[in-house]
């Protein structure tokens, strides 16, 4: 019986593997790795090493691959693709000579097959674990370097030029369990025409936000020293000092931090500013079926001393929570007790994401900044400001994969009573150009101390892979800002190209023309402004 069944299966397989009477016109990708495709066609279908195959995904082109190794019925191909991709087959070459039919050995006897199976099952072998060679630290992918050029210009004002080098290191191991984190920017203003507000006498500027050695094991002593941005201490500014804490296996961390606070305008070390305090943090991550998929609570209690605000005690808290896939909440608030004043609410923000349906989401945010947020305003000028509020809400409906609709509304208010409100629709066609990209358009009606209208349209493409291109045109009409209404028409282009595994090119250009309806139309082209920036970014 089993012999009969085996024969039947062999016959069926033979039928399947037999050359079709009609020549195949297309082959397919059966399996894909990161750089190699496994094809269901081989030499008998006309494939030969070195041939370039044009892949298709449905009706769309999906790149090419180069045939690597060919067997009679299968082949491998170097390139990127997915299982299911197809490719056309050319005419089958005539065989050079008839190959003799292969005559396989007959089926094994049951006893022999059983003996061989037992031998295999009883064989002992060692498990192996592949461990590649250690990667060189300098190529760990944790270092970003960007060389940039920026320029701004407007009618009647000569251009501003800035050359700039930005560097960031995010956790490069340096030994002893420590990693290096750094974030800095060196800028040179080669041209600043007209009066400058920001550091007018410093054409060379160096900003250092982070230069810290960090040790943060999953549990145990956590240490950071240098110019640190205190970890899991919400709202903490950067300090030249140290942070030390203890991390438990239950994802709780507590500790202290302190040091001198750099100057807010230059980030240069300063000794008239300082902070010190304690922090407590907890994080919980559930599995994919948990109700609470993610929860994070952080608290900071700190003494802060600065020339603008004097000595104060600050308490800040952060709460983030994701409930299932439906609800995301983020709340952060800070209260302060100045030395000679009563306790006040310094800042508060709330972010809400609500996804009751798979294709519908509601996003909202509220921001409050209290009266004691200093804003440097030129050398020696510090505005302590006043209360500002901002709120917005956006509803989005992904109607079908190629169409989404959104509506947004919001308001912003500042202490002198100026406020603005806005609302408007948005439509997105993310697959207008298939896999290449899509387009979207929107409109905002604006009301308040400077009301008006905004309309825009943009195209975003993400193909070929590694290249992102954004083109946008916009029109503004602004009323109330001056005695007459202002019209502006502009366009911007942004391009990001990954030139290789380590290097990317980024470019942004913006141009706009202004006019006054009735007296100075846009077509006069007498009011023009623009900006341009180009950056070469490396990742090592």
């Amino acid at each position, binding site marked *: 019986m089993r012999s009969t069944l085996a024969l039947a299966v062999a016959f069926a397989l033979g039928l399947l593997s037999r050359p079709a009477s009609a020549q195949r016109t297309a082959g397919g990708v059966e399996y894909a*790795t990161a750089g*190699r495709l496994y094809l269901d066609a081989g030499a008998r279908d006309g494939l030969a090493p070195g041939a370039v195959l044009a892949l298709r995904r449905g009706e769309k082109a999906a790149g090419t691959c180069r045939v690597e190794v060919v067997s009679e019925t299968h082949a491998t191909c170097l390139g990127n693709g997915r299982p299911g991709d197809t490719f056309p087959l050319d005419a089958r070459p005539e065989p050079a000579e008839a190959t003799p039919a292969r005559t396989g050995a007959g089926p094994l006897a049951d006893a022999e097959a059983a003996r061989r199976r037992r031998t295999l099952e009883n064989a002992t*072998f060692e*498990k*192996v674990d592949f461990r*590649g060679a250690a990667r060189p630290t300098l190529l760990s*992918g944790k270092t970003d370097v960007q060389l940039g050029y*920026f320029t*701004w*210009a*407007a*009618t*009647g004002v000569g251009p*501003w030029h800035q050359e700039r080098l930005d560097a960031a290191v995010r956790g490069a191991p340096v030994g002893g369990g420590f990693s290096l984190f750094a*974030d800095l920017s060196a800028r040179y203003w080669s041209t600043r025409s007209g*009066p400058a*507000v920001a550091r007018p006498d410093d054409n060379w500027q160096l900003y250092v*936000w982070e230069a810290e050695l960090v040790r943060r094991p999953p549990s145990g002593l956590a240490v950071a020293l240098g110019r640190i941005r205190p970890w899991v201490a919400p*709202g903490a*500014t950067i300090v030249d000092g140290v942070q030390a804490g203890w991390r438990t296996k239950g994802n709780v961390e507590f500790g202290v931090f302190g040091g001198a606070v750099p*100057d807010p305008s230059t*980030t240069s070390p300063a000794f008239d500013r300082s902070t010190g305090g304690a922090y407590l943090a907890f994080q919980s*991550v*559930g*599995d*994919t079926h*948990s109700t609470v998929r*993610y929860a994070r609570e952080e608290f900071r209690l700190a003494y802060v001393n600065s020339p603008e605000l004097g000595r104060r005690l600050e308490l*800040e808290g952060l709460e*983030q929570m994701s409930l299932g896939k439906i609800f995301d909440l983020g709340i952060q608030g800070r209260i302060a007790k100045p030395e000679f004043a009563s306790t006040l609410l310094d*800042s508060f*923000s709330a*972010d809400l994401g609500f996804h009751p349906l798979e294709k519908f989401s509601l*996003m909202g945010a509220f921001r409050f900044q209290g009266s004691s*947020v200093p*804003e440097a*305003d030129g050398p020696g000028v510090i*505005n302590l*400001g*006043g209360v*500002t509020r901002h709120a917005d809400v956006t509803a989005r409906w992904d109607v079908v994969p190629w169409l989404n609709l959104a509506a947004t509304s919001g308001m*912003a*208010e*500042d202490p*002198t009573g*100026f406020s*603005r409100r806005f609302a408007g629709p948005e439509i997105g066609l993310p697959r207008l150009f298939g896999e290449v990209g899509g387009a979207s358009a929107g409109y905002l009606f604006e009301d*308040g*101390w400077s009301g008006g209208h905004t309309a*825009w349209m943009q195209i975003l493409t993400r193909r070929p892979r590694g290249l*992102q291109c954004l083109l946008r045109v916009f029109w503004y009409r602004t009323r109330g800002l*001056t*005695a007459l209404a*202002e019209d502006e028409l502009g366009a911007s282009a942004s391009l*990001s190209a990954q030139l290789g595994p380590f290097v990317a090119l980024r470019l942004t250009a913006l141009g*706009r023309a202004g006019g006054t309806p009735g007296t100075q139309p846009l077509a006069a082209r007498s*009011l023009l*402004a623009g*900006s341009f920036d180009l950056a070469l*970014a490396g990742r090592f």
Partner: protein
Amino acid sequence: MIVSGHGPKGTGCASCHSTENWRRVSFDHEQTGFPLRGRHSLASCSGCHASADFSTAVPTSCSACHRDVHTGEFGTRCATCHDEESWRSKFDPDAHRRTNFPLTGRHAAIPCEECHLDQRDRRFTRATVDCFTCHQADYARAATISIDHVAAGFPTTCRDCHNPWSFQSGRFPAHDACFQLAPGPHAGIPCLGCHTSLTGTLPTGACATNTADCIRCHSCPNPMTQVHQNVAGFQCFKPRKCYECHQFTVTSLKRQRRFR
């Protein structure tokens, strides 16, 4: 046989790995609902997934992985300004229209740090959108390049006269009540092109400043004198006498010409 680090479900090696290399993983992350775009596509799996068995949920909010350099000012919504390509801000003048201060004119073509000077905490909150808060120095500097705003007693509501493109060619809408400047042939003439002095010309609504000097441009000899020979009280060398009749609003000009 391989020792799997992915827990009990981790025996289907070929769904992600190939025989080429353990490190080169092919996994369609799009099916998880979090497509890896831009720089995320270059991240290592363990950079986000602390547990190798991938059964632990990874929060999709940016702030769960990325530290906040803005000290909480913008909450958890990084995507308002940043995308997956880089940390470079995409918050452009377009986006600025959703704040309390639309960037029009030259405001859209200056570096962000000219207004937002807090480099340390990278905050962007401004105290107020009132022009004078930023342009105090320009108000004072006007004395050296055009009109002494302080001496003239000009108000500090800059936008009453100036547009966001330039401080030059300031408009003075209140002037039209006395003597229309725009539209018309007097549009664009600098204040001191007509006025002998602006000191003390605090705009009060009163038209008589006694400083307008019409005959700088309008000559007095014939034929003007002949035209005005029947106008009672006409005195050529007293400019005030000109605008007592010629207020030069569009309607008044037509009317006066009709009476002539």
